[in-house]
Structure formats: structure tokens, C-alpha cells
């Protein structure tokens, strides 16, 4: 049993912290908010490539750093702490990861080195209207048409969908709308005929998109894995991204608590430091408790991912349920303890509050994961 992170993880985190200090700030976020649709910068992205972060989990043969998922999570914790908006989860953990996990040798050679060098941005489009958070709900259809497939349908809340060069789209090649079988994954170019990418405003001021597919033609070579059998691959990759998101959320929680403690230690009311009021002390303690339990769950999920344990799906749901609850809860307390100032865009704390809400929802909210946990661990007879 070993749930500690190593010196190598800490070194990676140190360099991430230095990078964020130099290249990023909350004022940069305030600027990016006003720049639709990207909400991040390709320049910073290229610099991240130079640090080998974009190929972090890819094999050396594709110019990757060949590190395991625990390093991705270590890195993401720092991104969460510093609120770095660059599309690391969507490109590296979703899009690229699908190719790494299920792609052909040729696809790997074609895509992974480009991702690692920062030249290619990718994402996954799987949510649909009426399907809530279920990846198996897939009405978008792909019809065989000679050697090719013609895809029509609509996907919503595609993470970093504006600006992605390639979008992996789940589409139904057989079966009923919510069957697990019959889903196929297609790589679609952003400039494909019939594809319309519409930017969507998200609460945290980041980048999402709705995409409409109107008879978009895709060749067989752009299928990841096998026809009809994309579901498991997709779920496994979403789980890895979820674990990564959880690590980001932990970083956000830590920053939230730090900011709050600093505020309580500085501000004076009624002749005393705010932080000396017992009711506020106890709320701060609750924040720590929420945070530490979430951290434990995420570390465990991370370790079970790295170990490819049978528990990993369940562990990811535990981690996401805990993080979804703890992050939004802690930021709510923080806003309250900051008082009126916390309710302004001048305070940094608001970024965490809004990010917490979006992160709570991304890849499924508490109820979705409680439900998934039950289905796995306490199946109905």
C-alpha cells in the first residue's frame, strides 16, 4: 500500500508552479475571458510543449515523456491551483489518449507527435441533448456509404471544442439510442464539410462548443478501434480524464483554502482578526476536512488507475463524487467568508467558485457518480 507521491512528482509540480508564475496570472484570465472563442492562448500552449508536458503520458517513440498517469495528475493539480485554462485535459487526456489507447499504429504516428509538439489540438464530443451525462446515449448516426461513413447529429458541451483541430465524435453505427454496443469513434477534422462548431459561453469563462454534424463524410481510416465497439474505449479514456479533472479540482481546493486563510488572517472586524472568530474557524476546518477526504479519494483513484486495478472505475466515481461535492462546497464557504468582496470579479476567489461548478458537472455530477458506484458495487438483484 503506497499512496504517497514521489520526489519526481514534486519536481514536476515545482516546475509547473514556476511556469504558471511566469506565464500566467488571474489578470490574464480576466483578459482571456473577453477573447472568444478560444479563452486560452496557443502561445502558452507551445511553451508547454517545450517542457514536454503535452506528450507527458505518451511513449518515447512518439516524442512523449512516457510517464504514467500519476504524473498527469500531479501536473493537473498545479494547473488547478493556478487556474491555467489551457486545454490539456481535452487534448492530452481525451483526444490524444483515445488514439494512444485504441488507435492504430499509423494513427499514433500521425497524431501523437503532433500533439506532443503543440501543433495539434484535439477533443472528444460525446454528450447529447436528452442523454444527460450518459456516454451510451448516442443518437448521432453514422451511415455506411461506400468506403466511407456519413455522420449526422448534434453534440453538446464539447470540451474546448472551439479551436480543436480534430474532434473525436461518438456516433451510432448500430443498435438503439442508449445501447452500449453499436457506438463507433470517428476522428473529424475541424474543417470537414457539414461540420459546424458553435462556441458556448461557460460559467468559468472557458471554452466549450456545440457541434452540428450534417452528413459529414469520414473514411474508414479515421475510425479509432473497431466499428460498433467504441464504447468501452471511450469510457476508459473518459475515466482517465475524470481522474485528471479530480486532480485539477484538488489543486483548486488547496488554492481556495489558502486564499481564504490569508483573507481571514488579514482582515480585521470588531477589533479582531476575522480568523479568530470561532464560527469562521470551524467553517475553515470544515473546508480542510472536505479537502483532505477528497484528496484521499483522488490519490486512491490515481493509484488504482496506474495499477490498472479492477477497482479503478469505482474508484474514479468515488473520487469524482467527493471532489464534485467538496470543491463547490468549499468555494461557497470561501465566498461567504470573503463577504461582499468575494462576490466581485476583483477577487480571485470567484474564479475558483465558478470553475468548481463547471468541474462538478464535467464528466458527470455527484448523482451520476453515486449511481455509477451503486451499479458497480451494489447491483440490483
Amino acid at each position, binding site marked *: 500500500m503506497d499512496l504517497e507521491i514521489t520526489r519526481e512528482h514534486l519536481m514536476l509540480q515545482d516546475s509547473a508552479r514556476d511556469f504558471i508564475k511566469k506565464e500566467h496570472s488571474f489578470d490574464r484570465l480576466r483578459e482571456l475571458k473577453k477573447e472568444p472563442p478560444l479563452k486560452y492562448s496557443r502561445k502558452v500552449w507551445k511553451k508547454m510543449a517545450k517542457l514536454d508536458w503535452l506528450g507527458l503520458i505518451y511513449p518515447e517513440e512518439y516524442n512523449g515523456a512516457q510517464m504514467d498517469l500519476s504524473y498527469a495528475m500531479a501536473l493537473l493539480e498545479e494547473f488547478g491551483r493556478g487556474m491555467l485554462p489551457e486545454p490539456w485535459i481535452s487534448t492530452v487526456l481525451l483526444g490524444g489518449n483515445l488514439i494512444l489507447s485504441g488507435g492504430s499504429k499509423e494513427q499514433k504516428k500521425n497524431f501523437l507527435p503532433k500533439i506532443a509538439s503543440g501543433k495539434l489540438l484535439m477533443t472528444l464530443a460525446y*454528450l447529447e441533448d436528452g442523454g444527460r451525462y450518459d456516454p451510451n446515449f448516442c443518437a448521432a448516426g453514422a451511415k455506411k456509404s461506400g468506403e466511407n461513413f456519413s455522420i449526422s447529429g448534434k453534440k453538446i458541451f464539447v470540451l474546448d471544442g472551439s479551436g480543436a483541430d480534430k474532434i473525436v465524435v461518438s456516433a451510432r453505427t448500430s443498435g438503439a439510442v442508449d445501447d452500449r454496443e453499436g457506438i463507433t469513434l470517428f476522428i473529424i477534422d475541424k474543417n470537414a464539410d457539414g461540420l459546424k462548431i458553435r462556441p458556448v459561453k461557460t460559467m468559468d469563462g472557458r471554452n466549450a462548443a456545440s457541434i452540428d454534424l450534417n452528413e459529414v463524410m469520414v473514411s474508414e481510416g479515421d475510425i479509432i478501434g473497431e466499428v460498433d465497439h467504441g464504447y468501452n474505449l471511450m469510457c476508459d479514456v473518459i475515466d482517465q480524464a475524470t481522474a485528471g479533472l479530480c486532480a485539477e479540482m484538488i489543486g483548486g481546493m488547496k488554492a481556495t483554502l489558502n486564499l481564504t486563510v490569508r483573507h481571514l488572517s488579514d482582515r480585521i472586524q470588531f477589533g479582531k482578526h476575522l480568523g479568530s472568530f470561532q464560527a469562521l474557524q470551524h467553517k475553515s476546518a470544515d473546508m480542510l476536512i472536505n479537502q483532505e477526504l477528497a484528496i484521499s479519494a483522488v490519490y486512491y483513484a490515481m493509484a488504482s488507475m496506474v495499477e490498472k486495478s479492477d477497482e479503478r472505475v469505482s474508484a474514479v466515481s468515488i473520487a469524482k463524487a467527493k471532489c464534485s461535492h467538496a470543491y463547490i462546497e468549499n468555494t461557497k464557504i470561501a465566498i461567504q467568508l470573503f463577504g461582499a468582496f468575494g462576490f466581485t470579479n476583483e477577487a480571485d476567489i470567484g474564479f475558483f467558485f465558478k470553475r468548481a461548478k463547471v468541474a462538478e458537472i464535467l464528466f458527470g455530477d455527484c448523482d451520476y457518480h453515486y449511481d455509477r458506484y451503486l451499479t458497480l458495487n451494489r447491483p440490483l438483484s
Partner: protein
Amino acid sequence: MQISYSKNEEKFRDKVRLWLKENVSDEIKDQTLGGSSLDTELMVKWHKKLYQKGWVAPEIDKKWGGSGFSQTENFIFGYEYARSGAPRLKTKLIAIGMLTPLLLQFGTKEQQERFIPDMISGEIQWAQGYSEPDAGSDLANLSTEAVLDGDDFIVNGQKIWTSMADYAHWMFMLVRTDTSGKKQQGISFLLVDLKSPGITIRPTEALTDHEPFCEVFFDNVRVPKENLVGKINEGWNIAKVLLEHERLNAFPVGEVIAALEIVVKNAEKINFRGKPLLEDPVFRRKLAVLDVDCKAFLYTFFRILSKLQSGSAPGPETSFLKAYGAELYQRVMDLSIEVMGPYGQSWYNLKEYGNPVHQATMGWVNARSLTIWGGASEIQRTIIATQVLKLPRK
């Protein structure tokens, strides 16, 4: 004991309900029922319409332009008003809810005649100048000073979180006129024309990306002596009375029930694994808890109303209404976002997607402020403990 309305009350309710049904447009409801505030232009129009009807200030005498409703009518009106999706007037909380009754109690006849009718007609908008950088929850710590110089006070200092200062024409404010005694002494209550030279107004952006409040800077601003309300150095008592008014006004019973009905309507339309979400047992259980809590909250309002009718005044025990109401509203808003599933990430409206979402996410963010303004929940609980339960202070 009786829970039903009398015939006359029923008639009054039906009259109010009908008028609101006919006059609150879908355009308005789209904005208000999601928890958001109304566009300025729509608001000005609405205020005019309501003023013509004579319903801007239900509890104020007709001679001032109010409705002169009885307490029961006032309650019925407020409840129907909120449930209808009619917008909360910009002047409601501050000008009608607080300053008008305050002027009627402490103001001179001249002040009343000069300010009240224009306040009700909406011609003159008011802002409230209370908080300062070092006087938030600890309001008595305020330091903006007013020094008498001939017939004028000279005001210097800074106010923050002044709602609508960029929109209002006048402001009422607390100033320090004496620093020798206890903090609570030496505070005075002034009415200030915001066009006075020396005033700088800087809007502050809230988490909603709107600018609902400002910082206001005073640099040797001259305020005529006749704009003092009550006696000099006795402004703290006035402020305390005003806080009571604020608490009762900050009791969003109709709003919270209307908000929950929106949640239900959305849950009816949203599909969850082949059925409306409203039929999901887990969702239903969450709904039942809020439903029951909203009802108990409504009955509490009935109880206080019964008390008012029988002539007893609501004392500090109403303090729990502000805290509980705000927290209940937040819980309803939490569920309203949860209902939406992935759409809960969206910022403001996503009507284009045919999703039954009004401006829920903005309303959700806005709801966080309810436990902060007008005495934070922590302050309310301390008031309950020390003033209602009389727990020792040390």
C-alpha cells in the same frame, strides 16, 4: 384559527392575480423567473405601469402615492406579485422598503414632501451608503466624516457596495460626525445629491458580470444641513430601525416558492433515461424536502402576519427569517442548476438549444449574495443567540 382567506380577501387576491397575469409579459418572466434581474429599459417601463396602477408602494399611504393596503392586503399582494414573475422594482428594497418608512418616522415634514412622492413615482432613484472598506459586518466602525461648516456638512471618505449608485440620483448615508465617544455614538444620517461636486463613482463588477454596486468617493462634498435626518450623532438608532425593515423586506417567500415551481417545470421537460426527470425517485425525494421546507417557510410568514394583525410587533425573532430564507433560496437554486444536467455549465441563457433553461446559472450565482447582504448569515445567527436566546456575550 383559520387558514383560508375571507371573501373580501379572496376577491382582492383575484383582482391582483388577474392584473398581474395580464400585465407581466413573457419577456419579463423569461428574465425574472430564472433569478436574474431585469434589463433597465424594461424596468423603467414596468415601474411606470405599476405606478399608474397605484401599486408601487403597497404599504404606504395613498396621499404619498402609495396603495394604502391593509396589512393582509399587503401580504397577499406581495406574495402574488412575487409568484407571478413580476420583477422586483429597483426602488423596492432601498427607497420604498427602507427610506420611505424611515422618513415617515424620523424625517421632517419638508423632507417627506420633498422626497417621498418622487421616490414612489420612480423619478428619483436612491442608493444606500453604508459599508466602507473597514466597516462591513462591523458597520459601526465607519469613518467617512462629515464636519459642519456653516450651513453645510463637508463630507470626506469612501463608501463601498452601494447598490445602484451609478443609476441613482440621491443617496442616503451614514457619516461620522463625532469621534470622541463609543463607535455607535457620533454617527449621523444624511441625504446626499449624487450630482454634488466632489463625488466620484466607480462601478464594481460582481460575479454575475453585472455591475450592481459601486464605490463612491467623497472629496470635500458639501451637503446642506437640512439634509440631516433625525438629530446629529443619533444616526445609529435610525440605522438600526432601518436594518429591521431591511430584514423583513429581505424575506423572499413568494420568490422562493416561484423559483421552486420553475425547477419543477424544468424537471418535467428534461429527459432522464427515457422518462421526465420529475419522475425519478431520487430527484423526487430532493424535491419533497425543498417543497416541505418552502411550505414551512410560507407558514412562518403566515404566523408572523397573524401576529401583526393581532397588534403584536415582530421583534428580533424575525432575524431568523432572513438567514433561513436566504439559505433556502440558495438550496432551491442549487437544485435548479442540478436539474439542467450539462447545461448547468452554461453562462446565462442557452435558449437557442431549446433547453428549458431561463437564466438559471446567473440566478444561481446571484443567490450567493443573499447570505452576505443586509447582515451576513453569521451576523444573523449571533443576533438570534444574543438578542433572542439571550446567551451571554462573555
